[in-house]
């Protein structure tokens, strides 16, 4: 069996580990555009922050490819796939496959902005090379303008906060981190970030860049030296789309990570599957999902059927020591608690927990995540107790004995 | 005197250099001796509440705690000691009968400690128990009087109901109620694993433990608590309890507060009602009456189970035992004055009864003289503390011993002697669920098995040293005993010679 994996992120690594759980012998070829050993992209902001280094950023140890018998083609770009002959055409020649995984991730999306092309120092913040290039452009006096107050934009802001003079962030949304926080929670985090010297221009966007200045829709102007665009990402779907596979915003996959093209699978940020909380088909561009989708794809490619139907939004992120965790969908009734070092919202509907936002004391939040994932009926547990304090107490003796006595997840 | 001043008997010494405020002591003390003061970040103790059970000291992970006897003292003399004085104060204050638990602690002679054992030298070889088979198995029940043979001269076996014990030790009667469910489970499981027996006491038999019936002796006492057909049928043997070494001549009283849940069901006493065991059996005023009960029980169980009669060792023990031997009982259990209890009036416990060694010797002698020793087995109890005590008891004439206190010690009891409070920190003499769970029977039963396995090894070694390979050869073999520091009268009663003779 010949496996080919396009991509070198967590979905790709998950696939290798998934394949090897079942098939120790089959040939695996990994094709990656980036020339680096597999590394964790979200760590690039920590690299700039000095909390990690290139060595420790490695997502798996140096011997990983060799130990798993993976033939690695780094710095090679996959250009197209021929689903009939089952080959991948790359800039270095053709690679045949029996099973193919597209784990090609996504690329920055840059909206059309007037004068953008003329901006001299402009960067994205997706890859290790992006991060290195950005940090080289910074001096302690540099004024940085970041377009996008999402996870990438703000992690970038935190990462460079010690390397530059000033940071301004513009976002079209009315709040920061609009994809994971509601208005109140966003205000809590925004306050903390402002205390670290960041400036925010919300419900606003750049009308025009001109001579080191950004003129906003609101009429305000921001002077800057370096521009970072972190508005959003676009899934890399062309390989499958061009081969005739079904795609929307991402490559459509079923619970086995199969695309509509025979023997072609997709996982990670380029794949669009089902959100187990809402039932919607969407891209869940998050590392845990990427890994688990990849692993599921790998197992299925190796002939071991098994579904991954537990994809959901789940985020853990921190800025300057303020931690926040979120998961699921923010729908239904709300349990709200706010206190010293804690902001907590639990969303519940139809006898199940739908989602949560917790800022500050995030301890044991995984117990809530598991309730969302497992659709734990709230009527069967002491909901009032678990709202206050996530523990295994509210589950009762019997369920606890299963949880703590066995080896299930 | 309106002011009551009781200085604490024990003091908790806490080493400030070692106490890490983990508060394990506080959580583990049912007497609430230890308290954490958050504002001072310090542990304090209320010594008055301390019963010196060592729970805190045992669990303290840094060994920061020790309990010492208070040096605070009265102006004692040889007559008026601390105990006598404080007891006066207590009674002057309460007007009540003093209560105690466990066995008689007073300084009466321990005859086991005044007897020494023999060993082989030159003329009769000793046996290495690690190389040669050694038999410690004993059977309880009357022996066959006559031997009958068939026409071919082969022995015709006569079926008699007997108990087979892998070694001459059993767990003595401790009721469910006086000790916990987990203590009972430990005893039952250990008895099964060891091939011996444990005894329900007069608290009935919890239905969970019917599975251990073939290793269970059920008791029928004056209150008849928990006695029903299935109870009798489940057991391997039935014991009629006449008396108990710790409190001869009096009955028992389990207060209504302890008659709850399973205890109530098992005893067949309504919840909250006091369970009063009368001092006498109201249907027994003579050996003939006793015989009626013995045979009632035999009849009820179709003559399939040996019947024990348990009595406390009192002055007239030999004559009483002779009567019991003639009542049809299969085993006489004699409980000496040091036998334990969950609660007894202090004066009774400390002043009534006689030592088991003397009682045993005189009973064995009397039954032999009367030619009826083979009708019954003798089981003795009342502070058997070691395999040496067992060994000496067998040499004096016992068929087996009951151990109670020793078994509880194996389960964790620290002999603090406050069983009557129901706050046993070791989960033994309590029914409080949070305390009961402190005794995990998985560990408890193993410790009992360990203890008796060790004793059995020791018994075999002692036997081997004498050149004896079967415990039966030791029984009543008083030549193997010599007295030290005993008067001629004591030697005569014990039926042994003095060392050097």
């Amino acid at each position: 069996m010949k496996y080919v994996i396009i991509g070198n992120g967590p979905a790709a690594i998950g696939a290798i580990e998934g394949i090897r759980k079942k098939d120790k012998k089959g040939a695996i070829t990994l094709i990656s555009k980036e020339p680096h050993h597999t590394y964790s992209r979200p760590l690039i902001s920590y690299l700039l922050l000095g909390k990690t280094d290139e060595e420790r950023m490695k997502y798996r140890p140096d011997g990983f490819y060799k130990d798993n018998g993976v033939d690695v083609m780094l710095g090679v770009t996959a250009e197209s796939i021929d689903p009939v002959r089952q080959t991948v055409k790359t800039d270095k020649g053709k690679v045949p496959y029996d099973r193919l995984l597209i784990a090609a991730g996504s690329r920055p999306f840059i909206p059309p902005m007037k004068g953008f092309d003329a901006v001299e120092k402009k960067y994205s913040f997706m890859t290790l090379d992006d991060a290195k290039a950005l940090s080289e452009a910074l001096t302690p006096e540099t004024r940085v303008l970041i377009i996008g107050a999402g996870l990438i934009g703000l992690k970038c802001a935190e990462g460079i906060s010690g390397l530059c003079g000033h940071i301004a962030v513009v976002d079209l949304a009315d709040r920061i981190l609009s994809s994971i926080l509601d208005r109140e929670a966003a205000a809590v985090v925004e306050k903390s970030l402002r205390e670290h010297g960041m400036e925010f221009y919300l419900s606003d966007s750049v009308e025009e860049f001109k001579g080191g200045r950004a003129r906003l829709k609101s009429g305000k102007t921001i002077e800057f030296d370096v521009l970072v665009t972190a508005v959003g990402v676009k899934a890399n779907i062309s390989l499958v789309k061009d081969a005739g596979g079904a795609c929307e915003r991402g490559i459509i996959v079923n619970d086995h990570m199969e695309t509509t093209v025979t023997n072609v699978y997709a996982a990670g940020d380029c794949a669009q599957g089902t959100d187990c909380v809402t039932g919607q088909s969407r891209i869940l561009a998050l590392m845990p999902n990427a890994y688990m989708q990849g692993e599921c794809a790998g197992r299925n490619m190796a002939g071991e059927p098994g579904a991954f139907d537990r994809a959901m939004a789940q985020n853990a992120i921190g800025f300057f020591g303020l931690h926040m965790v979120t998961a699921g969908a923010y729908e239904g009734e709300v349990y709200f608690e706010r206190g010293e070092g804690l902001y907590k919202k639990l969303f519940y509907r139809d006898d199940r927990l739908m989602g949560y936002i917790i800022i500050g004391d995030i301890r044991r939040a995984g117990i809530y995540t598991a309730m969302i994932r497992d659709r734990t009926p709230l009527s069967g547990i002491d909901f009032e107790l678990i709202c206050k304090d996530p523990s295994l107490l509210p589950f009762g003796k019997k369920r606890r004995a299963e949880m703590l006595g066995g080896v299930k997840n | 005197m309106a002011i009551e001043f009781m200085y604490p008997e024990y003091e908790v010494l806490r080493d400030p250099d070692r106490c890490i405020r983990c508060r394990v002591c506080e959580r583990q003390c049912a007497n609430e001796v230890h308290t954490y003061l958050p504002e001072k970040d310090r542990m304090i103790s209320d010594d008055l509440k301390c019963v010196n059970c060592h729970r805190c000291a045992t669990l303290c992970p840094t060994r920061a705690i020790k309990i010492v006897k208070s040096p605070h003292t009265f102006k004692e003399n040889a007559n008026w000691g601390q105990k006598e004085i404080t007891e006066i104060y207590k009674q002057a204050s309460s007007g009540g009968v003093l209560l105690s638990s466990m066995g008689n602690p007073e300084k009466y002679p321990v005859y086991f400690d005044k007897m020494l054992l023999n060993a082989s030298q030159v003329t009769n070889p000793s046996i290495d128990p690690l190389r040669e088979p050694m038999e410690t198995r004993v059977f309880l029940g009357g022996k066959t009087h006559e031997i009958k043979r068939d026409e071919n001269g082969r022995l015709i076996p006569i079926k008699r109901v007997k108990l087979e014990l892998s070694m001459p030790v059993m767990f003595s009667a401790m009721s469910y109620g006086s000790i916990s469910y987990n203590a009972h489970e430990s005893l039952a499981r250990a008895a099964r694993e060891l091939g011996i027996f444990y005894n329900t006491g007069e608290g009935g038999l919890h239905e969970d433990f019917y599975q251990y019936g073939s290793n269970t002796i059920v008791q029928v006492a004056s209150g008849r608590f928990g006695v029903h057909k299935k109870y009798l049928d489940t057991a391997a043997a039935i014991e009629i309890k006449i008396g108990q070494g710790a409190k001869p001549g009096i009955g028992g009283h389990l207060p209504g507060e302890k008659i709850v849940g399973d205890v109530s069901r098992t005893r067949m006493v309504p919840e909250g009602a006091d369970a009063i065991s009368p001092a006498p059996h109201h249907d027994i005023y003579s050996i003939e009456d006793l015989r009626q009960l013995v045979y009632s029980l035999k009849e009820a169980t179709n003559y399939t189970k040996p019947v024990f009669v348990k009595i406390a060792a009192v002055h007239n023990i030999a004559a009483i035992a002779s009567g019991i031997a003639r009542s049809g009982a299969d085993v006489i259990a004699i409980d000496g004055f040091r036998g334990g209890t969950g609660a007894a009036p202090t004066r009774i416990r400390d002043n009534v009864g006689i030592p088991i060694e003397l009682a045993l010797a005189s009973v064995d002698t009397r039954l032999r003289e009367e030619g009826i020793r083979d009708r019954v087995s003798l089981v003795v109890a009342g502070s058997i503390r070691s395999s040496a005590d067992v060994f000496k008891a067998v040499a004096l004439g016992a068929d087996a011993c009951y151990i109670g206190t020793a078994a509880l010690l194996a389960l964790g009891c620290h002999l603090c002697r406050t069983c009557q409070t129901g706050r046993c920190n070791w989960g033994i003499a309590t029914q409080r669920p949070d305390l009961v769970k402190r005794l995990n029977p998985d560990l408890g039963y193993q410790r009992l098995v360990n203890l008796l396995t060790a004793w059995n090894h020791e018994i075999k070694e002692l036997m081997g040293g004498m050149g004896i390979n079967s415990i039966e050869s030791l029984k009543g073999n008083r030549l193997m005993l010599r007295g030290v520091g005993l008067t001629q009268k004591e030697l005569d009663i014990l039926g042994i010679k003095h060392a050097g003779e």
Partner: protein
Amino acid sequence: MKRVYVNEKWCLGCHLCEYNCAFSNSGGRDMATTLMGVNIRPNIRVEEGEGVCYAVSCRHCEDPLCVKGCIGGALSIEDGVIEIDKSKCIHCYTCIVMCPYGAVMPSEDGAVQKCELCVKTKKGTPACVAGCPNGAIVFEER
């Protein structure tokens, strides 16, 4: 594989496991001097409610969500034991969001900590098991 299991029927809520864990992972020689005045952060935690107590530590799942979710590759499975390489942890706490038992937690320095079955202390039986006074915590194959 042998794992740590807590039988809540026998757990006394004494919290000794927490102290034994903290001491074992401290590398100190003497508990009193090592833990004196220290606000301990054990990898096993006792939970208590009305008449109920039990300790919770990492289950060492066969299919561990924390490892799958770890964005930095700091969590890994070594011979079935889920271990944390603290030097690779960047304090994102994704693992905390993933763990259904709440058994992964932030340590004092921000990196996450979790039970590693005392493999790094090389003492054989995990300290919580060895020190449990009631046999409520066992280390066995199930």
